[in-house]
């Protein structure tokens, strides 16, 4: 235990030997992945490569059949979803998952990390601290002027930002974003890339993305998944020229 702690000290997230099988089908197969502090890691891969499943496994939505997930010294496998969130892992879903009936302000407020148990929620007060923090995050996600807008009428890109904001307000150490720029205009993509580059002063980010231009803009390192396994890993440049990757993914 102690030994492995010192071994993995440098990594924020260390995934080792991760396997999950659904009735014999191994969606993720003996996968290992290490993410540094303040790193932006992009996971790419063809459809069905197991990208989303990896995020599901890390955030506890799916239970692994085998393997370990260590996150800043804590073992995540076996922890419940909300405990993993409390440990500092935030997760954005593939389709924007926000509370459509509520305003942008209320969406962010519900994600504010206080009053997260039953009685805390009953006696939660909207004080200056909450208001300041919500406004601060809203500014970061370009929605400062839309605080009182009902989330349902935001544009698709704005919804994506809002969900990212709902993660940011929790100040997680690791953000996991599943296709954050899907459905965004070019301008919105550039702003999102800016946003991610601002964020990583304090936190690490794992992104699943198909948009290669965007990947090149943000990625520190790229992991290519194929059939539940790591096919290649390294800088975008290196991955792009890896013949194995070209074969299964980039080259048509």
């Amino acid at each position: 235990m102690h030994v492995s702690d010192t071994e993995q000290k440098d990594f924020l997230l260390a995934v080792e030997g991760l396997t999950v099988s659904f009735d014999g089908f191994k969606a993720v197969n003996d996968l290992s992945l290490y993410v540094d502090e303040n790193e932006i890691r992009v996971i790419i891969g063809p459809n069905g490569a197991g990208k989303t499943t990896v995020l599901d496994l890390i955030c506890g939505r799916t239970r692994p059949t085998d393997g370990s997930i260590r996150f800043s010294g804590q073992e995540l496998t076996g922890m419940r979803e909300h405990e993993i969130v409390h440990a500092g892992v935030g997760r954005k879903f593939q389709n924007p998952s926000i509370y459509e009936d509520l305003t942008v302000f209320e969406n962010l407020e519900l994600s504010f990390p206080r009053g997260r148990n039953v009685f805390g929620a009953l006696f939660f007060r909207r004080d200056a601290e909450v208001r300041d923090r919500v406004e601060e995050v809203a500014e970061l996600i370009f929605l400062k002027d839309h605080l009182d807008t009902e989330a349902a009428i935001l544009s698709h890109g704005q919804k994506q930002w809002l969900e990212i904001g709902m993660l940011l307000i929790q100040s997680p150490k690791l953000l996991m974003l599943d296709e954050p720029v899907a459905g965004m205009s070019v301008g919105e993509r550039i702003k999102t890339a800016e946003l991610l580059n601002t964020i990583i002063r304090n936190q690490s980010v794992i992104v699943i993305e198909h948009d290669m231009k965007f990947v090149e803009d943000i990625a520190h390192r790229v992991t290519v998944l194929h059939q539940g396994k790591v096919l290649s890993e390294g800088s975008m440049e290196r991955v792009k020229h890896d013949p194995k990757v070209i074969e299964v993914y980039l080259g048509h």
Partner: protein
Amino acid sequence: MQSPMHSDSTFFSRQGWLSFVVLAAILLLVLPAAFDIFRLNLIGKYLTYAFVALGLVLCWGMGGILSLGQGIFFGLGGYCMAMFLKLEASTPEATKIQSTPGIPDFMDWNQLTELPVWWQPFHSFGFTLVAIIAVPALFAFVIGAAMFKRRVGGVYFAIITQAVAAIMTILIIGQQGYTGGVNGITDLRTLLGWDIRTDDAKLILYFVCAALLLGCVLLAQAINISKFGRLLVAMRDREDRVRFSGYDVSNFKIFIFCLAAAFSAIGGAMFTLQVGFMSPSFVGIVPSIEMVIFCAVGGRLSLFGAVYGALIVNAAKTSFSESFPELWLFAMGGLFIAVVMAFPNGLAGLYREHAEPWLRRLLKRSVARPAVAAAANTAN
């Protein structure tokens, strides 16, 4: 810029207070003035169902958890109260013709010779009051914890609660020596020596019931506008997002289910006091699902709607079964279908869509006639 949404609404909005005052005026002034004690007692009985409907608004309307077993909790509350009253009515003097004096009559008829141990604590009024809330809430906690911790919800939860309601009825009817069987616990007379069968007592009990109901409305509204209320709706629509924002979703569901159970139980206890008996016919599948329709007719998202829904449906039921008993099931069946297919937000939804805009226009035209608004509001 600080908009009203933006600042924390510490309690009710202005409109919320207005609706509350109107409801209070109807329950405490209009109805007692308009009806004789016999009808008022009936209304008091209907109001006991409003407690259940109120719980269902929180649990089903807001939280998306449909319980088809609210009769269980209504019954548990009612039986707790009935057990206390029955023990008080079964003094050795009053029951000296029995072969075992001092125990409830139905026990004697079923050849029981002493009071069962679990009946003993119901000699104490304090214990009974605690039990009325605690027993149903605890039972709801057990069901809720078992189901919600395993992520069982939706129709599965509905079916399981319905099955539990069925089990409960069969058990009560089957164990008649301990429960009074199919007739229930009847012939209740006094509460701490105070005769509950007189007109005066019925009037007082009506006001107690109405006041308790208003208290529960306030409590429910307080929850509704707290962060808890927003979380409930969020959980109903985006359970995973709430979970991955660091909330233990199951705890919230358990809490609201227990609260709904406690509300129902208060209703049940008030039912026993006002009607003078409690029987398994208020526990099983049919009464439980009828309670859902009270809530649905009033509007599953409206606390005030739930109260009006319970009143209106029950009043309709009484007048129908008095004049056209064979039509009642048609009407009830039609109501279930209509409320689902034609107006899913119930009376409250109709009010908001049709009456409110009209009202607003009216108010604009003549600001100096607030009485009209109050009168029209009663239609909510």
